[in-house]
């Protein structure tokens, strides 16, 4: 079963992403910020990481950078979930190793369609 790590500081967004994924048959693990996401990633392997950018403790860009340092996450798709659509932020994400972008507002159908491009 495809296992997804969902990292977002907003409960409701995290719940919604998780709910959407579960309803489509994915298995999900949630983390409330980059730091918790990283420690969960260190303990377990994931097929996909979906992370918010703006979070306390560790933001999504740093999480991405840190994850790429882990052998298990070298090739794991990492999607940034954010309202920032500016090219600047996209460039920073890309530089940190993000695979792609999901632009909020969060749309369940779009999420499911988009992640089809990176996971089964």
């Amino acid at each position, binding site marked *: 079963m495809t296992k997804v790590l969902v990292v977002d*500081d*907003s*409960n*409701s*967004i995290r*719940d*919604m992403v998780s*709910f*959407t994924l579960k*309803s*489509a048959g994915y298995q999900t693990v949630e983390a409330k910020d980059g730091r918790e996401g990283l420690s969960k990633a260190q303990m377990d392997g994931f097929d996909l990481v979906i992370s918010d950018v*703006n*979070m*306390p403790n560790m933001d999504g860009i740093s999480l991405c950078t840190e994850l790429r340092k882990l052998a298990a996450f070298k090739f794991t798709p990492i999607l940034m979930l*954010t*309202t920032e659509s500016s090219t600047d932020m996209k460039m920073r994400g890309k530089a940190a190793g993000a695979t792609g972008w999901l632009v*909020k*507002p*969060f*749309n*369940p*159908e779009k999420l*499911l369609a988009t992640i089809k491009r990176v996971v089964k």
Partner: protein
Amino acid sequence: MSVDLSQFIPSFLEESFEGLELMESGLLNLQPGDNETIHSIFRAAHSIKGGAGTFGFDSVTDFTHLVETLLDEMRDGRREVTNADTEILLESVDCMRLLIEAARDESDYDTEKVAQTSSRLAQTLGNEQLTSDENVSVDKVGSESATGFNIKFVPEHSLAKTGNDPLFLFSALAELGSLTIHANTNELPALMDIDAQELYLSWQLTLIGEVDEEEVKEIFEWVEDECLLELTPIDNKLPQEKTENEPTFQQENTTAPAIDETTPQIQESQIAAANPKSADEKATVSKTKAKTEVGSIRVGVDKVDSLINLVGELVITQSMLSELGNDFVMEKVERLNSGLEQLLQNTKELQESVMRIRMLPISFAFSRFPRLVHDLAVKTGKAMELVIKGEQTELDKTVMEQIGDPLVHLVRNAADHGIEASDIRVAQGKPEKGTISLDAYHQGGNIVIEINDDGAGINRESVLAKAVDKGLIDANATLTDSQVYDLLFEPGFSTAAEITDISGRGVGMDVVKRNIQALGGRIQVESTLGKGSTFKVNLPLTLAILDGQLVKVGSETYIIPLIAIVESLQIDNKLINRVSGDMVLYRLRDDNVPVLPIYQLFDLETECIEIDNALLVVVEADGQKVGLMVDDLLAQQQVVIKSLKDNYQQVAGISGATILGDGSVAMILDIPGMISMALEKAQYAQKFKNGGDSVKAEVCI
């Protein structure tokens, strides 16, 4: 596949309100260079925007976008955090709250406030991009405007040749109110065709504020021959008319091409203006809001668990007792007694637990004060800070809801009348910054809330002078300090030399006092001239239960609220004085306490109590002590207050009824009510007597 996300709306809303609180407290404590705080404020706004977008709360998304953009600039260090920015962000937080509440209740909101704030936000953001025509948010603002003008400004291409610069006109306009500018670039020719000396732009401006049409015209006075200028008042008082009316002011000296793109915009703004919130509507909106707030209560799981445990114990006790009752013999009476004892214990604990569900920490009521004091400091121009203590002190939700407004008034009062201006404070050797403190604590079954300021204190002489001036007291009256302070609560009394914007809102201290009394509480004032004042509000923890003293009057049992009782004593005949006709006074140390005969006041057909055998319960209300004559003092106990209004009506002198252990009903005495009854009765008797005298006099003549 379709996924229904509406189930996540409540958690989004809850999270958003938490986010707003976080933003507000962050903004209030924001120090220059405090990047972490700015980040957390930004994140909160960001999350709200993201969630709102998901659920289609577009008004929230659009507005929050502006806030987020401003915060983003601060976060990236592109913008210095100024006080003005903090102020507008605080205002924005209010607007976001309004918008989210409106989205939650599917109700209307104060469009004027939101439009004003968003246009100020846009203005703050747009300083360096005034003529940009692709700023979606600025565009949005134009369509949500309120009082002010929509201005269509289409200059001739040659406008610049006359030495006029639209930018200067706009900055002049911006002096009149808050201005948002939408530039139309459709007339821009291809790059190679551009004549650098020509002006190809036209503008749609929205000016918000109390502006006179003449003032706007004046600004365009020098260019009115060279442009198409349309002023459309945005008047929310006559929306219907305005929608139908032609623009009230139109000047068209040259045949400038009509700009179609701007027309829909004007209509849009008129529609927006045609749908404003009148004061009445606002009131209903806030009423529905209050209703939803009253409706539910968030209870900690621990409290629910303890209830379940107690109910479990009660069930055990019940089954034990019914088993005992099945074949009861006298030998088992001991077990019966212990069972009943256990039942009593269970019931008591259950009652306490249920009461605790309604108990909330007073921080719910206190949370609005940091912002209030901040705003008051800005408004009064005085430096002050707020210190909050005891915010975990719990009290009944109903009491909390009703004490909010009186507390706001008292804090306002402290900021307005208490705290002095900084220069005066420094001159008196006080710290430049004034301190207002709120303190809550429990004291013998009551909650005490103190509102304390280190300001000027209450000037006894000026209060007295004012009271004499208003005819409240006699010029020769000698009053104790507390009597003088009580004058502050007299209707129509205000110590401010002039009515200020802050305290003088039509709600006087008399209303504060009345509201507190309606909750069964009381308010006291302590003050030292030059040092400050303390207003002490004493409230019952709950409105459902009361600590009472049971007393016997004739064949009736009454309950006197313990909070009102000063002392109870055996009447000593020698201390009774009948004075000035038929008034009975009891000498209590130095005081002469008027004695109220309950049976007389309540018209009881009881054998008249012999005054020298009776007991006197001295009670106090409104600073007035009276003695209630009773036959006997019975137990002190907690009683559950039941309303008489449900099946009957309010009864003078009675605040409610309760059911005693034997199943009978007992009336709970309303001490302030009884005192005013007695006063009315005395006045009535007096009037009657005077009337009688004058009749007699006439007869004599």
